[in-house]
């Protein structure tokens, strides 16, 4: 593999997904989730996937498109409210959901990505999210130990990439992408634009290419946002059907 040209096609990427993998996915309510990689994940046919990401997307947006197919076994996230089907699967016992406070979840993934063995915090102390967590006492203060998170595979959406994998992002579609990019054993990036090395200003690079293993060109957003749908209440319905 040429580390200075990581661009591959989707057939190569499809084979990187496997049953029961831990998959880190980026995005916040689908914003910043790589649309073509989600389709590729679905087409790969993998099942029993253990998901780690901010939220469950919407049933027709982002990771939500995969979750509604019932091929995820577990989900570590901060929020699933925008995907009622994820909530149903959780209540039916078909999807094991672990909630983590959003910023702590980011730090757990960051810890995993930067070679640290976890974090200590008192966020969530005394709540049901603290149950079964190890308590560490330092200077007579109690903290929760929050374990680090890594993925077998991480999928990321960038605005621009050079062929080494240096990345820039688009406004709030950056969200947790830089964190997710660091924490996968294999990191796959879908980029809206791929340029030659030297074409990105080093000052604008947000994620250095050292974290990136594969690059694919984006097919663009292929879902309708919640605010583009006239009847926002019918969240369970696929708006394009």
């Amino acid at each position, binding site marked *: 593999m040429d580390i200075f040209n990581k661009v591959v096609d989707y057939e190569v990427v499809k084979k990187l997904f496997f049953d029961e993998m831990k998959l880190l996915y980026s995005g916040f309510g689908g914003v910043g989730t790589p649309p073509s990689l989600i389709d590729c994940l679905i087409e790969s046919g993998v099942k029993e996937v253990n998901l780690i990401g901010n939220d469950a997307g919407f049933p027709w947006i982002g990771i939500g498109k995969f979750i509604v197919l019932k091929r995820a076994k577990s989900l570590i996230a901060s929020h699933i*409210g925008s995907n009622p089907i994820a909530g149903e699967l959780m209540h039916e016992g078909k999807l094991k959901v672990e909630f983590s406070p959003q910023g702590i979840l980011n730090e757990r993934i960051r810890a995993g990505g930067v070679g640290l063995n976890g974090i200590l915090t008192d966020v969530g102390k005394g709540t049901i999210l603290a149950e079964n967590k190890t308590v560490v006492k330092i200077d007579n203060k109690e903290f929760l130990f929050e374990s680090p998170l890594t993925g077998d595979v991480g999928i990321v959406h960038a605005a621009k990439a050079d062929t080494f994998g240096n990345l820039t992002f688009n406004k709030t579609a950056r969200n947790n992408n830089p964190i997710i990019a660091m924490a996968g054993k294999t990191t796959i990036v879908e980029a809206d634009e791929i340029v030659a090395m030297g074409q990105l200003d080093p000052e604008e690079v947000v994620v250095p290419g050292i974290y990136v293993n594969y690059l694919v060109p984006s097919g663009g957003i292929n879902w309708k946002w919640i605010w583009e749908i006239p009847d926002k209440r019918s969240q369970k319905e696929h708006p394009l059907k």
Partner: protein
Amino acid sequence: MGDTRQKIAKRASLEIADGMIVNLGIGIPSLIPDLLDSSTKVLFQSENGILGFGPTPKENPDGALGNAAGYPVSIVDGGSYFDSAIAFGMIRSGRIDMAILGALQVSENGDLANWIVPGKRVPGVGGAMELAYGTKNLIALMQHCEKDGKPKIVRKCTLPITAFNCVKKIITEMAVFQITEAQLSLEEIMAGYTLKDIENHTEAEFTNSLQLKEHNQ
């Protein structure tokens, strides 16, 4: 109900003063930027990684520029983008002056429950625990009662707690309450309601600052 939400959000917008950094939760709080007096000099922060977002754009909404609820916003002069870990670093370390969050229940000593109704609704905790942890001034917005009429301002929360002793003010369509040193006090009665209405629909014990104020005059 739409009107009630707008009314609560409008009242909450009056809490925002020049020079503040404010985080808005999803639900009723996300209506605030569109209702805020446009001369107010404020920077809205959001967990997804933006400091300085403005009202809903009138034209050409951008799918890559949204608030925490995923709805399009604009960016104001002096705004910035950053990743979510940095966004929460700001929140936990106390850089946010005010957070305005939706709530399911608030207790008389300021405990907040706003993320799960076990067995029924599971929206998820999102960033609420950290906003409650790090923000100096936390305001909870909610309808005064549940749909079946059950009070949401309670003696003790029956729903799982998001964070303890964190709410400083509660704004509903009926009233505004202040919580100081774990004591709930009624500060304002909203138009169209009486003290009796509030007493009948509030489980928590509260002192009446309105009467005290009158008495002192």
